[in-house]
């Protein structure tokens, strides 16, 4: 307790995902008294990823180094083979991506977040307890505590304000702290992806049979092409111990522009003939989940700090989409650990921003920043992403000459090489060309027909919602719709992963209402089915917060 009655710690870490866990563990290693606040009933109950966590050879930290036993106890299966499938109708051309997958990769594990994060939480609690802190769950931080305009701590729904010398915002995408500090806004759909995932149950032992794997082997399949209604993005399938993670990741602006329904895009993947080899009529979905994913190329903060606040992981936009490969968790781990180290070396410095500045320097020097914001991309983007250029390239590709060029044998080999080149992949501009047109033409020209009959009947949205666990904060909705006009907020009816046009049981619904005289389409909102993905914070006009501690959706898989 400090003199003015506030609770006081040396460091407070908000969020116990990989970023927060790494920061807290490292802080404890340095002997810092550290309090970790997590809004879920348990760490992981709010979190979703694909999820492959990488141990990069070039990275200063990996989860296994920070938390010995991580791979063995917190993860599902290592990834030993990687493929990408270019789909054009029922023609598919697959390439082996194992080379790029292994580039700079010390290890890679498929994880489920409830299991992984709750395991991390226990380790973090053990370690932070030794230095006078610990982990508190069911606590939502709702803002920054300021004194004379300077950030000095955090305020919570459930606890009195807490002061600290270091505040680590590891609160993930849609970070309320980064927003409060003025570091992030949630305005531009181009800056985000939306990820949607189904965890599919498989009998123990079945994975090995269906995928021809040994006990300690696992697979990653990536999908692109025309199976997603022209929406920019792709799909994935990862093997867990006795389940599959199957999902999609799309550019949010593209979802909005195409008025696509995320759950239908997921269904398009689940029901594609290609997946018939791995799924059958006994399809049993354990969990449906979704979350926004920042695009580091656009939003990774160059100065991820303000006063005593440092921002790590998704909260700082440190989520790298390297073509079809997604790396967020590993960078969150690195950033969290570096932020802790920065505090350790600047401790006692009178300048409140010393730790933050040091942390930013360490991100640069460790090469992390150049992975998140590759200079090559910044250059390529200036030409590649312009509409005109896109259209011109599309035109050529679509012409017989273009098809011929991509279609010849030489191109085939060049393509496989191209996909496996980290340089080329990181340069692929975020346009239809890279995501849809090229893979589709590749599928068309090189693919072989896939005609297996897919018997999967994915559950309807109403059942997906029904199967989720909620602790509803009755009478206390966490999202407020500020503008109910369709122009302002209609995009959420489509883009919200638990809403759909014509579906009355979702969060967002378009309703034609008669007002004095005229007719008008309005949007209404029920936050009870909300999975807290963050999408509507960007695409609709809302006042958006997370629910109070322990309230809202609870993921069992993640």
């Amino acid at each position, binding site marked *: 307790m400090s003199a003015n009655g506030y609770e006081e710690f040396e460091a407070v870490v908000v969020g116990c995902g990989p970023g927060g866990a790494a920061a807290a563990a490292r802080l404890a290693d340095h002997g810092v008294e550290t309090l970790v606040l997590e809004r879920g009933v348990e760490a992981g109950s709010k979190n979703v990823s694909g999820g492959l966590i990488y141990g990069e050879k070039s990275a200063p930290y990996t989860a296994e180094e920070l938390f010995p036993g991580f791979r063995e106890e917190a993860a599902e299966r290592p990834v030993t083979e990687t493929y990408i499938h270019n789909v054009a109708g029922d023609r598919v051309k697959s390439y082996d991506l194992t080379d790029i997958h292994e580039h700079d990769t010390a290890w890679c594990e498929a994880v489920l977040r409830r299991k992984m994060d709750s395991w991390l939480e226990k380790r973090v609690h053990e370690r932070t307890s030794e230095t006078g802190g610990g982990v508190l769950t069911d606590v939502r931080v709702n803002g920054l505590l300021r004194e004379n305009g300077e950030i000095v701590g955090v305020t919570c729904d459930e606890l009195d304000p807490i002061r600290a010398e270091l505040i680590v915002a590891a609160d993930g995408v849609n970070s309320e702290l980064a927003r409060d500090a003025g570091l992030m806004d949630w305005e531009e759909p181009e800056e985000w992806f939306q990820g949607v995932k189904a965890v599919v149950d498989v009998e123990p032992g079945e994975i090995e049979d269906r995928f021809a794997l040994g006990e300690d082997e696992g697979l990653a399949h990536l999908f692109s092409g025309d199976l997603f209604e022209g929406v920019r993005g792709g799909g994935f399938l990862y093997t867990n111990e006795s389940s599959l993670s199957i999902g999609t990741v799309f550019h949010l602006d593209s979802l909005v522009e195409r008025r696509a329904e995320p759950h239908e895009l997921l269904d398009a993947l689940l029901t594609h003939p290609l997946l018939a080899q791995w799924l059958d009529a006994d399809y049993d979905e354990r969990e449906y989940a979704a979350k926004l994913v920042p695009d580091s190329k656009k939003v990774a903060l160059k100065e991820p700090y303000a006063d005593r606040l440092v921002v790590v992981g998704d909260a700082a936009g440190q989520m790298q989409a390297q073509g079809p490969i997604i790396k967020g968790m590993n960078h969150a781990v690195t950033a969290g650990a570096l932020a802790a180290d920065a505090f350790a070396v600047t401790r006692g410095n009178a300048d409140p921003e010393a730790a933050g500045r040091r942390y930013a320097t360490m991100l640069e020097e460790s090469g992390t920043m150049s992975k998140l914001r590759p200079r090559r991309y910044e250059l390529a983007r200036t030409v590649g992403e312009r509409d005109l250029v896109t259209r011109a390239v599309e035109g050529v590709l679509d012409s017989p000459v273009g098809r011929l060029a991509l279609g010849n044998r030489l191109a085939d080999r060049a393509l496989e090489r191209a996909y496996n080149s980290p340089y080329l992949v990181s340069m692929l501009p975020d346009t239809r060309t890279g995501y849809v047109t090229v893979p589709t033409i590749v599928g068309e020209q090189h693919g072989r027909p896939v005609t297996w009959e897919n018997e999967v009947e994915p559950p309807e949205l*109403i059942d997906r919602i029904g199967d989720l666990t909620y602790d509803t904060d009755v009478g206390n909705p966490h999202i407020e719709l500020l503008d109910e006009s369709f122009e302002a907020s209609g995009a959420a009816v489509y883009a919200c992963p638990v809403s759909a046009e014509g579906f009355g049981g979702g969060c967002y619904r378009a*309703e*034609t*209402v008669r007002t004095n005289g005229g007719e008008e389409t*309005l949007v*209404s909102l029920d936050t009870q089915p909300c999975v807290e993905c963050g999408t509507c914070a960007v695409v609709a006009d809302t006042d958006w917060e997370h629910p109070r501690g322990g309230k809202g959706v609870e993921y069992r898989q993640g």
Partner: protein
Amino acid sequence: MNCGRTRQVIEMDPGEHTVDELAEEIASIDDVETLESILDAERGGDDRKTAKEAIERRIEAVGEDEPTEDGTASADDVDGGEGSEGDANETDDDAGDADETDDDAGDADGGETSDGDTGEADEDDEDDGLSHPTRDKKHVRALQGGDYEDMWVFCETQAGELTDVSKEMLGKARELMDAYAEEYGDEEDVVAVVIGEDCAELAEETIAYGADVAVFHDDPRLSRFVHKPYTEIAAHMARGQGSLESTEWRAYDEPRYALFPATNNGRDLSALVQAELDSGLASDCSDLFIEDVEISNPVKTGEPGVKKVFERVLHMKRPDFSGFEYSTILCLDNPDRDFHPQGASVIPGTFEVPEPDPDREGLVVEHEMELEDWFGVEVLEHDQLDEGVDLTGHEVVVCLGRGIGDDPTLGMELGLELTDAFEDAAFGITRGIVTSSYQFDGHVEAYSKEERQIGETGQEVAPELYIAAGVSGAVQHKVGIDDSGTIVAINTDPDARIRDFSDYFIEGDLFEVLPALTEAVESGELPVEALADGGIDR
């Protein structure tokens, strides 16, 4: 002697008088209580039959006199004020109003005021020279040709805040008076009235919501609504009584218009204040507008066969007693007697809460008045009742879902009619309705709230018969009705989920099926008991 009552000290012992003397003596006493104490004294003393009869006769005479005295029965005036609107309207309106008016009058009668009034009026008319606590009270009775201005909004507060309905009324009043200024070229004010404890700030706040003037009365004893002092203060304010400083902003007799919230306390206050001001009241209104109107009723025009235009008349729309038709109520002056302020109480939620404008400027006036001994009722203890509606414990529950979307108000009306057709039924809704953006008309709006939600995050019900119309049957709804006896579903979609757990599934449009069901129930064609038992064959 047992006559040391509060109202009058009795110096008279009936035993000292012969029966004849006694009769003469009591002929000048008009106070029933005094007479009763004399009667008691006689009973306790000589107990003469003839003496008792004489006193009883006098009591009877006094009692009969009372209501016929001029201005005593305030309820009559309410009737008079309100009855007049029927003139401008069709007859069925009349019926509706009359009913409602009686209600209001009944309220006023049943309350302590009418007693009080009766006494007071007596005293005003015939000074019996005795000491009455309120006899020095003077107020202007029914005016004729008075000056009226402004729209007064009586704001309700709760837990130190303006209630939403207060803000809604302020917003509406602003809108009405802006239009009024445009139409008639007279800038008149919206005047907010705030009564309570520590309410100066709330008075400030009413300016931001549209008031031009805010008059407040602050007193710790007014922390919660007590009808006597509240009524006295409100009427005092409206008549412009009080110190010079607190009243110099205005130059009229009484407000032109008055708005009250149709809440529990607001209903109380509106009836009392309007009666006190000798005007009428249109209660539970759901729309308001100001317009001229041409009237031919001789009661209003003064001459048969003559038409007269009444200007600036507040048209007060309210659902009639069935709830499904509207009456427009007008409060018009008679040739020899004014009915002002034209007063209405407004159903909460009818109008929008306006965006507050903190930069709006207005005048805040503290009202001054000696509060008399009006605090005879003291709240010693209070208990917050569980809010809302209890849907459990009924034989039948009718529940509506988003299937009403094509015409939400009509859908609600049909659902309510079916509910009414049963002897013991409750009316519920799905969460889908609670969270919709449907624009319900005022009279059904109240039925669209969370307090009627059935399901996991609402109420769980277990009636013998559950009727779900336009409900898809989501699992979170299902868990709230699982223990019901017989489940009947009406849905246009034969694949709707609810079919899986319905005993009877009627594939059809609820807008057609509900009225047919209502008719069947009312005519006794639908054997409810048999249905509830699940015992009829299909």
